């Protein structure tokens, strides 16, 4: 109780969110009594960050820094503008489509948010989009990354619950594409209300060819990265470092736009942004430990599900629960703690393991965008300098649409299992 009060109170009084999470966790340890619990804090901070795949985030931020500085980003955006700029909100649509492409590169939503926040958001702002809106579109698109394979969360779910990881990967493809399409509809509907820009004329074919030639080297970047992953040369985390290497190479030797002083500034900015995000992850692991040790998520889940016996009510309650706990706790930790509690319930009402898995993964990824604890929101806020509450204010139509899609997939098994069945996984 004291922990919850401290958490909410300190955030409202203007303490940075990461520090408020830390203070709440430490108060929790203090309440348990004795130095042995307080001594646990530093260890949770260290181990909360001691995870190799987390590297993808700083590397994609750094790659973004270099791409912006050297003009790689603006060449790509120029090409996108020439192709779709005559539509209202063309770049917002491009952002969504790029998320689908980028989904093949990353397994974590935060890596996607980091990369686009540093590249596409500034480019959109330059072309007349409001920054909060550009961030909201990027946040909405960032969950496509871990939905379309590869997906880190699906690997954890598959090995934890004994479900085919390949089957979960297959089940992610359709919702990923539908989320993209639906978000594009949301963009189109809100285009006038959000005053999205539109360039006047359609590019001529000759002009288009010229722009394409200028951006060939920039276009090679995603191709090299995707080829590196699918060709089995690098892991998705290492691929982020290849992005840095390519951007650095092009920027230094082809476009000749990077000096040592520039590069130092890019490294410092990358580290600062990473520090702002990682301090939240680190402190959240203290609070998460306190919650697990006192078995609070399980108690909440049991209280929540006590009266439900209708399958639709159970599914809805599970989704609601994941979205709510996802507001204050890291999603991998939630998965580890709650999946063993909740998945047996889905079995009782006859959901197949892959179906339940995709619902879990989708719900948890969506919770990455819900304030106050939404890792994607933190990343975007930190990378772009836009305020959290302003991004959240522009985000809700996308969030509603994505939750609606989640419910469609949760309640309609034939659709959820369409591709896994096609590929022989279900």
């Amino acid at each position, binding site marked *: 109780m004291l922990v919850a009060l401290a958490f909410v109170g300190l955030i409202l009084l203007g303490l940075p969110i990461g520090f408020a999470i830390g203070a709440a966790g430490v108060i929790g340890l203090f309440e348990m009594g004795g130095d*042995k619990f307080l*001594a646990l804090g530093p*260890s949770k901070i260290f181990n909360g960050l001691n995870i190799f795949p987390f590297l993808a985030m700083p590397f994609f931020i750094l790659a973004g820094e270099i791409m912006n500085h050297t003009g790689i980003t603006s060449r790509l955006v120029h090409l996108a503008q020439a192709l779709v700029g005559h539509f209202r909100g063309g770049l917002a649509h491009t952002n969504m489509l790029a998320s689908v492409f980028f989904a093949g590169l990353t397994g974590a939503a935060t890596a996607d948010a980091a990369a686009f926040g540093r590249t596409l958001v500034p480019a959109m702002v330059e072309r007349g989009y409001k920054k909060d809106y550009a961030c909201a579109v990027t946040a909405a698109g960032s969950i496509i990354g871990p939905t379309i394979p590869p997906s880190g969360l699906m690997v954890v779910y598959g090995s934890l619950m004994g479900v085919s990881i390949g089957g979960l990967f297959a089940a992610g493809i359709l919702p990923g594409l539908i989320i993209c399409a639906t978000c594009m509809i949301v963009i189109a509907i809100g285009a006038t209300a959000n005053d999205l820009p539109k360039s006047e004329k359609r590019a001529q074919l000759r002009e288009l060819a010229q722009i394409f030639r200028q951006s060939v080297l920039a276009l090679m970047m995603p191709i090299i990265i995707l080829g590196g992953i699918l060709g089995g040369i690098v892991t998705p985390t290492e691929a982020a470092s290849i992005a840095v290497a390519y951007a650095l190479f092009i920027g230094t030797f082809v476009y000749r736009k990077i000096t040592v002083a520039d590069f130092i500034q890019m490294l410092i900015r990358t580290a600062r942004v990473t520090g702002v995000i990682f301090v939240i992850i680190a402190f959240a692991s203290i609070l998460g430990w306190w919650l*697990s040790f006192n078995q609070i998520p399980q108690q909440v889940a049991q209280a929540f599900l006590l009266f439900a016996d209708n399958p639709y009510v159970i599914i809805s309650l599970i989704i609601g629960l994941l979205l709510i706990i996802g507001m204050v706790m890291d999603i991998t930790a939630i998965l580890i703690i709650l999946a063993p509690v909740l998945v047996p319930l889905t079995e009782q009402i006859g959901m197949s393991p892959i179906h339940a898995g995709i619902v879990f993964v989708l719900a948890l990824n969506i919770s990455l965008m819900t304030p106050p604890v939404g890792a994607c929101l933190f990343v975007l806020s930190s990378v772009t300098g836009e305020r959290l509450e302003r991004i959240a204010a522009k985000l809700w139509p996308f969030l509603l649409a994505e939750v609606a899609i989640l419910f469609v997939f949760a309640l309609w098994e034939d659709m959820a299992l369409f591709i896994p069945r096609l590929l022989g996984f279900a």
Partner: protein
Amino acid sequence: QSKTLKFGHDNKADPFENPAHACTAVFANIVEADTNGSIKVEVFPSNQLGSAKEHVQMVRDDVIQATLTSTGAIASYYPRIDVLNLAFAFDHNAATYDVFDGPFGNALARDIEATLGDVVVAGFPDTGGFFAVTNSKRPIKTLEDFEGVRIRTMTLPSHQKIIQSLGGEAYPLAWGEVYSGLQTGVIDGQMNPVPIISFAKFAEVQKYMTLTNHLFSPYTLMLSKSFWDGLSDSEQRTIRYAAESCVTASRGLSRIIEGSDRGLAGLMDKIEVSALSAQDRDKFKAAAQPVVLKHVEETLGKDGVTLLEMFQEEVSKANAKRYMQ
């Protein structure tokens, strides 16, 4: 008033699914029943409270009172555990029971207790049996087949050296990237006990599995010493025999898993399985053992060598033993 024993481990929360939870379930049941509830046992599966290494620290600090820790996790606290990585030591499972329940297991337990100073070691439960090697390059049946196959290992120099001594290449890769690494071909293969291979779904992305049986890494059942010292004699006695049943349960379930659809029998539908012939196994052994011996001498010094010699002696006795004879 009743005491609470919080027991953390790194496996799933179903006693029929994995040896760790089978072990803790048996332990919890015996302790709660036989102490008439004076000790309450709460089990935290699936690394809910942190990594296996953190579990060890939490036991040492009496934040939790017991854990099952893997040899990889205990190594940073007790480097001499590396002597168990003498490859191809055991001829069969029964020999592992003999060695870890016998004089060597006893000596190892006392050495861990003396080195850490704040724990009590109550047994060495089964993690799921011997290590097997999977890969997608070619079936590995002879030493030559190992040539140039890239195997993922833990960041454990002795494991890397074993693979290298067999002619393979060994690269550490973070656990979270192993599945997709095997899928895309960043690495050709990996090594683990059969239940872990089954549970991590590696058969979906691997073609061949060889039952090399080259390593046996038991859990260490570890209790907090300050908790232990606060127990009555009869409570300590209950915990001792509960631990023994916990070890037995882990072994029983490991063999059952291997023999059922969840283990080898199930994997055989998805992956081409082969066992090493006795002659080939001898060649593997001749290639790997000297490398591990040298590694132990270089890194663990005199105490390590003494412990290793005792291990070798007890293992050869156990290997020679005949059942019911």
